[in-house]
């Protein structure tokens, strides 16, 4: 059946953890966009949701860091962070281990992947799921792209991963949804937290929504680092979704810098 839904959204922990400190008008508009995304996701009737995230040393550390890893667990749980700090209650999510294995096996024709049968979700996945699957009843397949520090997988290979995911999904009867979660420009967990380069974000989003592969792959990590902060390296998750939705463009449903959330808050959906 292949992909029935593809989109991207933000995942910064302040989105839920510091919700009371944001301008309520902008915050509620952002939350409404998440809810619109939830409704669109549900309308697509997926059997499983693939979440392409950029985790933050919750499961993977510098002793054994995969560039790309796909979950293959029976179930997952999270958040790994303190519930009060993140503002999200602990939950358990069903996995889809058989489908994961099939997708991984297929994708490995094109890309090298690690797999994990144990995975504790951090805010990078929990914040999107808090809004998109509030009943925690949709089977999840998590994907991690190391965006935390070099050496980092080249952008081209992130796009190729998305393509491989699409090809693998095409061979399956299940209805599969995919979302990418990450920042665009941001400087999280540093004294510059709250800084957002809105022009940079809007230019990137224009290229992403147009799914202009060559322009997306032309980003240089050193320049991204300088202009969009270390959090900007998470554009890898968006680029993977662009690869999965190759040939399709998207719509921006929400973008606004919300400094207390430490990111340009984004919700966008591809027109498959």
């Amino acid at each position: 059946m292949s992909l029935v839904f593809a989109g991207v959204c933000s995942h910064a922990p302040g989105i839920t953890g510091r919700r009371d400190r944001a301008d309520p008008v902008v915050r509620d508009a952002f939350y409404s966009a998440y809810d619109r995304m939830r409704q669109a996701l549900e309308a697509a009737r997926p059997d499983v949701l693939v979440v392409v995230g950029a985790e933050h040393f919750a499961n993977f550390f510098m002793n054994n860091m995969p560039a790309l890893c796909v979950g293959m667990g029976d179930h997952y749980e999270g958040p790994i962070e303190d519930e009060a700090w993140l503002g999200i209650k602990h939950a358990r999510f069903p996995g889809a281990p058989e489908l994961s294995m099939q997708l991984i096996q297929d994708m490995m024709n094109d890309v090298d992947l690690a797999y994990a049968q144990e995975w504790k979700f951090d805010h990078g996945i929990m914040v999107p799921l808090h809004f998109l699957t509030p009943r925690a009843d949709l089977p999840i397949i998590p994907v991690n792209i190391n965006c935390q520090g070099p050496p980092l997988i080249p952008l081209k290979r992130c796009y190729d991963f998305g393509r491989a995911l699409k090809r693998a999904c095409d061979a399956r009867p299940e209805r599969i949804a995919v979302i990418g979660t990450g920042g665009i420009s941001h400087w999280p967990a540093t004294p510059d937290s709250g800084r957002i380069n809105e022009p940079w974000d809007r230019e990137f989003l224009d290229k992403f929504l147009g799914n202009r592969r060559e322009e997306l792959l032309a980003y240089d990590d050193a320049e991204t680092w300088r202009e969009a902060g270390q959090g900007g390296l998470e554009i890898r998750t968006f680029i993977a979704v662009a690869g999965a939705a190759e040939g399709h463009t998207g719509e921006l449903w929400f973008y606004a810098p919300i400094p207390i959330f430490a990111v340009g808050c984004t919700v966008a959906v591809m027109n498959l």
Partner: protein
Amino acid sequence: MSLYNVQKLLFQLNRDPAVRRRFDDAFETLLADYELTEEEQHALRDPDIGLLYVMGVNGQILMHYAALRGFEWNAYMEAMREGERKYGPVRTGLYTRAQGR
């Protein structure tokens, strides 16, 4: 390599309930399990969040230690700024590159 050990301790503290119990009940023996410099032990024990930041501890690991030690968000931000004022720029790791400030 020592910065790696600081980060490993904090990573395991964030993730492993058994390490968290040792943090609560036997902090000094927990520290002794990791090859740490005197300065690193001091920064963890104090805790000196600003010094840990300047040492180069990744913020995605450090922010949870700050929260665990009772730093609310603004206090965590200020602790990092104070660290830069007191100890100078970040010495190594992810945050040594130009931040545009």
